[in-house]
């Protein structure tokens, strides 16, 4: 009895723990890969997942003879179903790395598979595309290179009409793109950009998500800023991508996530961001930010952080463009609701994904740095106090919060009037107790601005043992000059 229960419960308990451990391991591996500039991920499309769900590994290791036999059967079987079955068995075999190796070493195998992909039997063709998809998911670069002869056909079918086949081709291309530079080199001349620009008109959401995935993989490549981004910007893709990011009943989160990442890769490469701004990127992304905050308010927050992150990045980086002023970008983004939305998102990130908090504060910095209007909104919407509540967070968060406060304070006396009296000074005395030089340094900067524009604050500072707080940093090389000046100001005041 006990054994039975034990036997039944254990796999579940282990499963959860196992899942968590695996996720942690994967996260660590991804971090390492990112530092080595090797961050590569692929998507796997399999619709017979239930077979694997019960933990039975269905991937077969097929030998050379078997592969040959299945290919021959798929080509020349007497019945259509028989051909499909042969190819389906081969496909399951190709889930195994060893079968993949055997397959690519077998002479003529890829040629035959491409032949089946272009066959006039629709289901056989689909099965051949699935075989290629399995191969594209391989972690061995040689397997991706073996798929080189297939890319022109995959692109041809992207221009077709069968949404199932288009989706498969796009995910396969997206996987091959990150695995092999040789594949990327030939995709541009083979016309991937016009093919995608035509395909993005598709009404099928599955196709659009797959397209966004493939495009984001292309734009992520090391050579993208020189090779792909100019070509993408020269096509109709940017306008279409912005269309798919417009908030409204037609916005699909899965699709929007992919295209928001595409935009991020384009924008952070700084090839021609002025063009995106003239297409209205700032206003579209600003409206999307409002929409996201609205969804969070209605607590429809399933997976929203996935979309929040690239949208924050796109807006932040776009705001640094000189063209923002020139083409009326400031006009596109002057609505103070953007600040309100951003704070709702900050609160959401704090609960859901605190590691993304810095990205939100980065946008707040870029919004407030040169904008008296947004600084005024921050004050009139009573957002200083919530901002101060973020100070006990990580050092990066604290520095960013203090920087935003400096942005407000440096605008002059009218602004600092709203900062004192208030909770700012006690918070600053707390951050002066931090050990991080950058946090303390930024606190000193803010104190200087406050004393300059609001001399009345000096008295309060002295009363709250501010001098003692400063003394602590007298010896630190990077801080002592500023500490001395502030001490003198305080004593004079």
């Amino acid at each position: 009895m006990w054994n039975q229960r034990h036997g039944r419960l254990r796999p579940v308990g282990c499963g959860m723990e196992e899942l968590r451990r695996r996720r942690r391991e994967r996260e660590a591996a991804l971090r390492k890969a990112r530092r080595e500039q090797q961050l590569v991920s692929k998507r796997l499309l399999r619709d017979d997942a239930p077979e694997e769900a019960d933990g039975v590994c269905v991937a077969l290791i097929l030998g050379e003879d078997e592969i040959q036999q299945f290919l021959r059967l798929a080509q020349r079987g007497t019945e259509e179903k028989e051909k499909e079955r042969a190819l389906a068995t081969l496909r399951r075999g190709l889930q195994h790395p060893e079968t993949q190796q055997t397959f690519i070493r077998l002479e003529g195998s890829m040629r035959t598979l491409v032949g089946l992909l272009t066959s006039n039997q629709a289901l056989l063709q689909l099965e051949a595309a699935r075989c290629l998809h399995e191969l594209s998911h391989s972690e061995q670069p040689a397997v991706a290179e073996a798929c080189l002869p297939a890319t022109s056909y995959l692109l041809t079918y992207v221009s077709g009409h069968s949404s199932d086949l288009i989706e498969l081709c796009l995910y396969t291309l997206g996987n091959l793109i990150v695995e092999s530079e040789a594949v990327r080199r030939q995709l541009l001349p083979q016309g991937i950009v016009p093919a995608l620009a035509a395909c993005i008109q598709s009404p099928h959401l599955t196709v659009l998500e797959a397209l966004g995935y493939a495009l984001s993989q292309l734009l992520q490549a090391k050579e993208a800023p020189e090779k792909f981004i100019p070509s993408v910007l020269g096509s109709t893709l940017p306008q279409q991508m912005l269309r798919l990011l417009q908030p409204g009943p037609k916005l699909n989160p899965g699709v929007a996530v992919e295209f928001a990442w595409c935009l991020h890769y384009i924008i952070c490469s700084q090839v021609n961001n002025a063009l995106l701004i003239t297409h209205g990127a700032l206003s579209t992304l600003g409206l999307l930010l409002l929409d996201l905050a609205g969804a969070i308010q209605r607590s429809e927050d399933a997976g929203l952080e996935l979309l929040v992150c690239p949208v924050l990045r796109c807006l932040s980086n776009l705001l640094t463009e000189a063209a923002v002023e020139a083409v009326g970008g400031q006009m596109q983004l002057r609505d103070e609701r953007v600040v309100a939305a951003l704070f709702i998102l900050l609160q959401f990130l704090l609960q859901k994904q605190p590691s993304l908090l810095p990205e939100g504060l980065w946008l707040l910095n870029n919004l407030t740095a040169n904008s008296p209007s947004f600084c005024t909104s921050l004050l009139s919407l009573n957002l200083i106090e919530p901002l101060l509540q973020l100070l006990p967070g990580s050092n990066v968060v604290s520095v960013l919060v203090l920087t935003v406060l400096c942005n407000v304070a440096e605008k002059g006396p009218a602004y600092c009037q709203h900062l004192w009296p208030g909770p700012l000074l006690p918070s600053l005395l707390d951050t002066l107790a931090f050990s991080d030089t950058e946090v303390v340094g930024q606190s000193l900067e803010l104190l200087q601005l406050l004393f300059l524009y609001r001399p009345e604050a000096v008295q309060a500072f002295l009363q709250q043992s501010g001098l003692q707080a400063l003394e602590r940093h007298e010896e630190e090389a990077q801080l002592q000059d500023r500490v001395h000046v502030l001490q003198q100001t305080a004593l004079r005041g």
Partner: protein
Amino acid sequence: MQLPPALHARLLAGPGASEPLPVERDPSAGAAPFRFAARRVRFPREHEFFEDGDVQRHLYLQDVLTQVAWAPERPRVPEFTCQVAGCCQVFDVLEAYEHHYHTLHRNVCSFCKRAFPSGHLLDIHILEWHDSLFQILSERQDMYQCLVEGCTEKFKTSKDRKDHLVRRHLYPADFRFDKPKKSRGPGLPAAALPEPAETLPEGGQQSEGDDMEVCSEHMATPLEPRGERRTLGHRIPSTICFGQGAARGFKSTKKRNKQH
């Protein structure tokens, strides 16, 4: 983090911004040893600031099987037959029919019933194979359009186009959807004739390239010794129909015909 309750109301209200307070800067602000200057910050793609967000993105990509509601079971429906004349394929899953229709009946040449993977390739085929003016015009100007969508180049001959496809677009030399029309006796639809042996592209693998146009059991098996499929008899599909406009069924569907 406690947000003021009025903030949520602000989000729902209309656009607008309050009148900015007057800006009045003192030159001694930010003077040495202080260094603060308000500025917008840009981060390039590899910056470590992006590490956490990038890792989350890649976890999402890899997790997609668990995140996206993927419908593994497509509902079965009572068996039905494709309604296109001459096609008797039977289906019990709607999506399979959709795929079949879009692949085989969507871009079909009305003259010779060939199916093409895209509208672009079909347009080029109709122009080159069935437009009577094409031959005359092509003697005077470049008429052979590039097969790659988005490329506007035209060529004098299909051979020139093939060279362009291989050199400029890195297409395979035996690209299956590049079948130039050969000059043949009038009245005979070109589709019915096997390509003359000398037009075999490099590697002699041409016969498997006709997949879209001839029946698939006819594909050459590269896994077999070469000589076997060089015999002409083997290369003429048994199901091929001569005569303009005749529907060319596929062998398997014919079988189904007999069964039903």
